[in-house]
């Protein structure tokens, strides 16, 4: 077998081995709860619609370049023993002008919709928009609804087909707010009060996470956006506006409340439960923690088992997070605290 044929054969093998990867890739992408090719908000839908034609233009350019490359390599290859010196061609000005103009035209085609969509995405919404203040903390999210006087954590509730206007600030380092299926990213920078506007177009729960490296638990700074109908949202707001339950009837939960409010246990140093002396602002507001689906920056589902696991050793679940217990809690105490936290509906 000659060298040339060996080369050709291995090239074919290499290209063929890549084809299934690419083909199956196109079939298998889109299966994630964060897949952007299934947009559920106006921003991401427009971005995806802008991306698709750019993508096909890119494919065209790549296929063109690679086809010319492979054809040239094959057509002008030197055969074994061949010793020819081709014409010493230095260039061709007309060709140069042509292949300067063609990319310029392609880019102009991309630039126009790019710039117009960019301005459109930043356009202020109408007066019906829902305003939410987003406060990023190392490694969880706080959501405030100023017009309803509601504060919650890690779960952002929004209304389908109603624009959301997020006003974002960070208490520590730079973060970035990203719910892939609804919108693009916007960094959350201390003192910058960045704004992100989008309109959810589907009812459902959408996962998102911090997209700017922000320290040891960057990977576990997750959150959800729960898109509801106006009625569901109103009901949720009404529930969140209730004051926290007074001393619960369940004796276990009552003991948990007592433990929670005991200053030596340090819970109230960081957490707020409205209507009690717990007014800490470092950790998530727990007034209605029992009504939430996730805890600890989206690391855990909010189940009694997970709450207990978290209270047993938060540093084991999420190493480096800011919650430090003054002492190891006993199993009884944990059970009582879990009962109390679950009662905070």
């Amino acid at each position, binding site marked *: 077998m000659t060298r040339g044929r060996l080369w050709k054969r291995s090239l074919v093998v*290499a290209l063929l081995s890549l084809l299934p990867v690419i083909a199956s890739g196109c079939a298998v*992408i889109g299966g994630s709860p964060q897949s952007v090719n299934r947009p559920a908000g106006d921003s991401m839908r427009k971005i995806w619609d802008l991306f698709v034609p750019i993508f096909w233009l890119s494919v065209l350019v790549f296929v063109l370049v690679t086809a010319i490359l492979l054809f040239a390599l094959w057509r002008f290859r*030197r055969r074994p023993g061949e010793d020819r010196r081709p*014409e010493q061609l230095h260039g061709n000005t007309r060709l*140069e002008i042509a292949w300067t103009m063609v990319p310029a035209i392609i880019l102009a085609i991309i630039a126009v919709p790019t710039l117009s969509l960019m301005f459109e995405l930043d356009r202020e919404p109408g007066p019906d928009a829902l305003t939410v203040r987003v406060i990023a903390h190392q490694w969880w999210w706080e959501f405030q609804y100023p017009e309803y006087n509601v504060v919650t954590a890690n779960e952002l509730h929004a209304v389908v087909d109603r624009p959301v206007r997020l006003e974002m600030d960070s208490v520590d380092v730079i973060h970035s707010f990203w719910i892939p299926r609804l919108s693009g990213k916007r960094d959350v*920078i201390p003192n910058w009060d960045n704004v992100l506007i989008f309109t959810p177009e589907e009812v459902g729960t959408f996962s998102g996470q911090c997209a700017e490296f922000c320290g040891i638990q960057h*990977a576990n700074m997750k959150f959800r956006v729960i898109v509801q109908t106006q009625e569901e949202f109103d009901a949720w707001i009404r529930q969140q506006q209730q004051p926290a339950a007074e001393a619960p009837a369940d004796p276990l939960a009552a003991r948990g409340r007592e433990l929670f409010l005991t200053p030596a246990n340090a819970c109230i140093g960081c957490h707020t439960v409205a209507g009690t002396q717990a007014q800490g602002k470092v950790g998530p507001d727990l007034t209605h923690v029992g009504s939430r689906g996730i805890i600890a920056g989206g690391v855990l589902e909010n189940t009694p088992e997970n709450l207990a696991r978290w209270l047993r050793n938060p540093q084991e679940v999420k190493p480096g997070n800011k919650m430090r217990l003054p002492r190891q809690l006993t199993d009884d105490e944990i059970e009582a605290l879990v009962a109390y936290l679950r009662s905070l509906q």
Partner: protein
Amino acid sequence: MVESALKLERARYERSALVEWLTTVDHKKIGILYFWTSLAFLLIGGLLALLIRTQLIVPENTFLGPEAYNEVFTMHGTIMIFLVVMPLNAAFFNFLVPLMIGARDVAFPRLNAFSYWAFLFGSLLLLSSFLFGAAPDGGWFGYANLTSSRLYSPGLNIDFWVMGLQVLGVATLASALNFFVTIVNMRAPGMSLMRMPVFVWMTLVTAVLILLAFPSLTVGLVMIMFDRYFGTNFFNPAAGGDPVIWQHLFWIFGHPEVYILILPPMGMISEILPTFSRKPLFGYTFVVFAGMVIAFLSFGVWAHHMFAVGLGPVPNAVFATTTMLIAIPTGVKIFNWLGTLWGGAIEMKTALLFAASFIAMFTIGGISGVMHASVPVDYWQTDSYFVVAHFHYVLFGGSLLAIMAAIYYWFPKMFGRMLDERLGKLHFWLTLIGFNLTFFPMHFLGVDGMPRRVFTYSADMGWDLWNLVASIGAYLLGASTLLLFVNMLTTLRKPADAPADPWDGRTLEWAIPSPPPAHNFDVVPVVRGRDAFWIEKYGAEEVVGPAPERHGAESGHNPHNSGSGNEVGHGSSAGHGQAAHIHLPPPSWFPLTTAAGLTLMGAGMVVHATESLASLGFPIVGLGIAMVVVSLLGWTFEPIHEESHA
């Protein structure tokens, strides 16, 4: 007198091999030092990449904890950029530029040695952080205020990063200055700017980029240092500072840095494709000017790394437009490389295969770069795995594939031995397949909304398959890289029998023996056109420009470049009498001690940040300063014409 001078120089060169390498000021030896040092760092950086891919191979993996993972990805990026690709480029600058322009050395040989030692010691300072369990963990981009505040990054991690990069920055700046002066001043007679090999052109453009871009990084790092050490508040929002200022300073450096990493490889490609096609580079002038346009525009695109920062639509529109513009000269280069192959007599050597695959792979990285230029699309793609795919197609599919081509192409010139072609081709195919298997699926992960820099992901995210494929590809890539080392090490055990011109080369380095003698050219060559050596071999169909005036061109030139022959020096063919007149700069210890003093200053600052040894910090810094001052005095007064005293 000449006899005694020659004897003296020979005596100086016959010291022990270790001392010879430690004190060398020979650009070829320094190039070889850069070469092996950065290849060693390539193994470290590659190992870190394998750790990353092992951690992400399955969801919720516990192979590395979050702390270790953040250190590993930070050091992977920092090492690959500052300790691998830049110094590998520098290895080829050092070895090739004087040969290609017909010079006997660089303009400032001792400064050149200093650059290498500062690079080595700065790298070791950075890498020593592993020994103290405090490897940098703030990302290679080191965003403030996460990095600038001891509240958010206690420990020595970021201190190692800041001090290591500062030392490396000094090395890089000195080197850039050296090559700028060398290329402007030390070209052989007849080597006009537009006759320079494109690799030399790209070296010149890169030197300018470094000189203009690195100060911005230096300033930013000084500000982080002051925030961390001396209580300033440049990036502290609580005191009215603004962390985004760091992003501007960093990316004004960081985007030109991308071209600092890719332009020299583009120059390598522009030498290798013509040789194996036996045709001149198509559109030489356009390729050279495209390089300059890219360099110019690269200072006006930095905020495309910051589209999601919220600078507002108007600044984003400006930077989107300039970013798209930069694609035009890049496209021109790609088409000219295709034009070079077209109609050639292409020899399928390993170097050519790597160079040709560069064109295809870099095109993928280039067009996904155009996607990022579309701001709304970037709102999605930035900080997702789509970007990770993109820049690996640029930096691996671009820079590293071209550097691999360059290794196969110039290894015979550097070491006098031909690398094994069969092993080389195996290396090539494994690399190409492994590379695409690793990085192409990351585009899919980007579409599936996987963010960068996450040490873990949960099983219900649907990211397992492509992470698994990418990890398998990474292991393949690691294995293929080992093949390169096997090839190099086995080749080095063979006798040095490479011919002076194994590839039918076109540029001056192929006119002299492999490896070249210490003085490079017995007789300084006279250049009669572009592709100077090709013209000498085969004659020019049309010689571009007027024939050079020997003596006119000589005036103001390096006085040590004696000789009056009118042809390209063919190594041994020149008379020995002339070689005796050649003065080579004597070896010196001062570059090494200056670099050591500089690094000691950085190390002292790190010590100052410790809890237990803080009081030793400033005395160590003082010792470093004293060492630098004494070394520079010695350097200044060191006789460089010692033979006249003999």
